[in-house]
């Protein structure tokens, strides 16, 4: 089936999640929806890999979770960025920028 949305690598997913959470607190679905929205539907988040990733990041201390009420008064688990997570985001962002710059150069000149 034709699906133009691109799959996300795990490491990249982590970075995107951190970025999205840097703006505000969201629950799992919210994170997926936000990424999809901002990328104008190009980036598809595998539900199957999202939640394991969230749990992993929580284990590493980059994010923290707490149960709260959603807009429609349902219980949902909200995630927010920690200070460690902020640092991690910085780190990953700079790595990513360096990487994409290098790749762009190669694609241009090679």
């Amino acid at each position, binding site marked *: 089936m034709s699906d133009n949305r691109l799959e996300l690598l795990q490491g990249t997913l982590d970075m995107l999640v951190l970025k999205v959470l840097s703006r505000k607190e969201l*629950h*799992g*679905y919210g994170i*997926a*929806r936000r990424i999809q929205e901002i990328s104008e539907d190009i980036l598809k988040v*595998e*539900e*199957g890999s999202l*939640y*394991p990733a969230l*749990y*992993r990041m929580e*284990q590493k201390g980059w994010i923290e979770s707490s149960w709260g009420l*959603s807009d429609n008064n*349902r*219980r*949902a*688990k909200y995630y927010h960025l920690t200070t460690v997570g902020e640092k991690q985001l910085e780190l990953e962002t700079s790595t990513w920028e360096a990487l994409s710059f290098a790749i762009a150069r190669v694609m241009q000149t090679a």
Partner: protein
Amino acid sequence: MSWWKQLLQGLWRRNEIHNEIDEELQFHVEMRIKDNIALGMTEKQAKANALKRFGNMQKVKSNCREVLGVEMIENLIQDFRYGLRMLLATPSFTIVTLLALALGIGATSAIFSMVNTVVLKPLPFKSQEELVLIWETNPLSGHDQVEVSYQNFLDWQKQNQVFDQIAILPSVNFDWTMKGKEEPQQVTGIFVSANFFSLLGSKPILGRDFTPEDEKQGASSVAIISYGLWQRQFGSDSNVIGQKLLLEGDSVNIIGVMPQAFDFPSGVEIWVPLISTPGDWTQKREFRVSRAIARIKSGVSLANAQSDMNRVAQGLEQEYPEANKGCGVRLIPLTNVIFGSDKPALLAMLGAVGLVLLITCANVANLLLARAGSRQREFAIRVALGAGQIRLIRQLLTESLLLALVGGTIGLFIAFIGIKVLVALAPVDIPRINDVTLDGQVIAFTFAISLLTAVLFGLIPAFQAARVSVNEFLKESGSRLFGNIHANYLRNCLVIVEVAFAVILMVGAGLMVRSFNKLQNVDAGFNPKNVLTLRVALNQSKYTDKNSYRQFFRQLNQKVKELPGIESSGAVLMRPLSGTVGWDYPFTVQGQTLAEHKTNPPSNFETASPNYFQTMGIPILKGRDFTDDDKEDTAFVAIVGESFAKKYWPNQDPIGKSIKIGAPDEARFPWMTVVGVVKDGRYREWEATRMDLYMPFPQHPQYRMDFVLKTKGNPLALVKDFNNAVYEIDKDQAISAITTMEELVAGTLSRSRYNMFLFSLFAFLALALSMVGVYGVLSYIVSQRTQEIGLRIALGASEKDILTLVLGQGLKVVSIGILLGLVVAWGFSHLLSSLLYQVTTTDPITYLLIPIGLMLIAFIACYLPAQRAIKVDPLVALRCD
């Protein structure tokens, strides 16, 4: 957090974690549904889409849990549940396997514990391997166990180079009259040199050990008592030290109490220092009434110690030719002496139980393999559904572990009860039998073995299944896969081995049964029915000379004769079946030279009262019994046993011939005229007779006599009357060793009976287990070949043909096993020879009956599956799989 913390969390908060993940994912799905509907999908579509986006929801949840680290426990619990379900789904398999495991583990643990405590556990001595018992020897007269001379002992101490210490004690234990605060009683006691306990490395738990001061002449009388005596007489009172006892009329001071485990010599309850005074028996070198123990210096071998002592003995022989002519020395490891008689039996028991364990393992392996064979389909499907190899293996492992653990636990129960039963039924004189408990090491060992078996054989199918090509398997019907050739071969081999082991055990048991039978039927030479027997050992400080002995026993004999309820009564020095103790006197037959006298075996010396033979039912073959007219002032007479007469007067009438105690020229022993010949008695061992020599007790009075009373009714009812008769003569005289001859006989046979019982138990177990194995294999083969059988029936095979086919298969395997077992049994049964009486280890009857019996039972075991084969409906069999 660390993995084990996660594990615990997983256990504790399992439900909580599950629910949270569920809730979170559920929320996500619902939100997605909402959005989908907003996008225009129907509710159904929305739902389907939402779920599809998750893919395998279970897997996602599993991944989440994995991240949290609680997945491991999840899997474990799942495997556990699944395994349990599978086991419960096939109850017959499960029960049989559990039973096999439990019996195997239980029996092995019980016996092993017993052997461990009785034989293998160290004695309460320090470095027991360094301890030896020392006897003298006299090769000239063919004796390799001669009592030790005190004077020789002293010289050994000075001249040897290989011992740390030597101690000396009498060769027999004494029955002493002891009086505390209550009635006088008999207690078993012994003299020992002061270094006795320190040599052995065992100390009193209360008070002190002997010191060299205690064995000096003129030292105040002291004694050390046993734990048992302390409990019984003194109620474990810690103030017992310093209390006094009257021992044989002498006052002794209790200075120490030995620990509970100390029991050497066996049965002794009071130890007194051996004091040597000038003029007493210790000064005469030729007086041999002792034994010695020694501790070999560390680093010196037994052989070296023996040769050094040989050197010393030779030197003494030259120095004291009169007393030591031809005398050598023999060193025996003490552990051999204490355990010697029981070791072979118990080791045989170990061997037997080892075989049972092996059979159990083979059985369990077989059962697991069979089951695995029938589960290949299940595995293939699971592999097709995505189960990883590792998962499969892990799950099978859990199943096997479950089996092993449950089976093992039941086995523990069986072992616990088994030990109680074994100890209750055991002869009471097996040393330390009452200390036997379940041994932790033993349990661990047997558990480990069964675990290993279960795991090993439970895993084989997993590895097989992992390699099976799923497609190929699902296409064809299950029974086309004949298990693979290898598995069948393996299982057949296992059954052959099981049957072989069972045969070996059954042969062993059969031999022991025959042996015991022969033992029971031994003609004892006397009639033990309704015969009460008791011992009177006179207090030797009160009765100081032969006259006083004579007088006492004469009086007692007279009184006992007149007791009501007596058919006849008599007395003898040492009654039959007294064990290894006895009075060995050298003798001379008239006409023998000194040289010939020295080649005579020792006589079993007895003094007897008139009517002794009649009371015991010992037939008088020639001549007459003693009478009251055979007194101290009439002619010296003697009665000899049948073997004695046959050996020395083979073609003559023994009546009227002369014999004497001691060497031909020993003046203090007069010549005696033989007046009677009686049947041989069994005074020492049940299995053999000796040269019996009786003298009338007035002519050779001793300080002790065993009385025998033939009663009309229950023998034990007369004990009180006898006691009163004794008290009427001397109110301070105690009686001891009260029992009936029938009990003595039973006791003598008790070891053999016990061995036979145990072996038969094992043989039975082995038989049962191996037959279960045969049945199991054959059942499996039948179920696997149902199609083939159906085909045959459809093609016209008769019931007989099918029966022959199946039975043939089964019996073929059994026959090979029987043959193998017989061959091995034939080769190794000589190991049992020390336990058998008058039965050769290649006893043809046993070797014939066992295979026949086993074949019959195997036939039954094979018949059941064969019956099932007949009932196969060809239509059903050929249609489905």
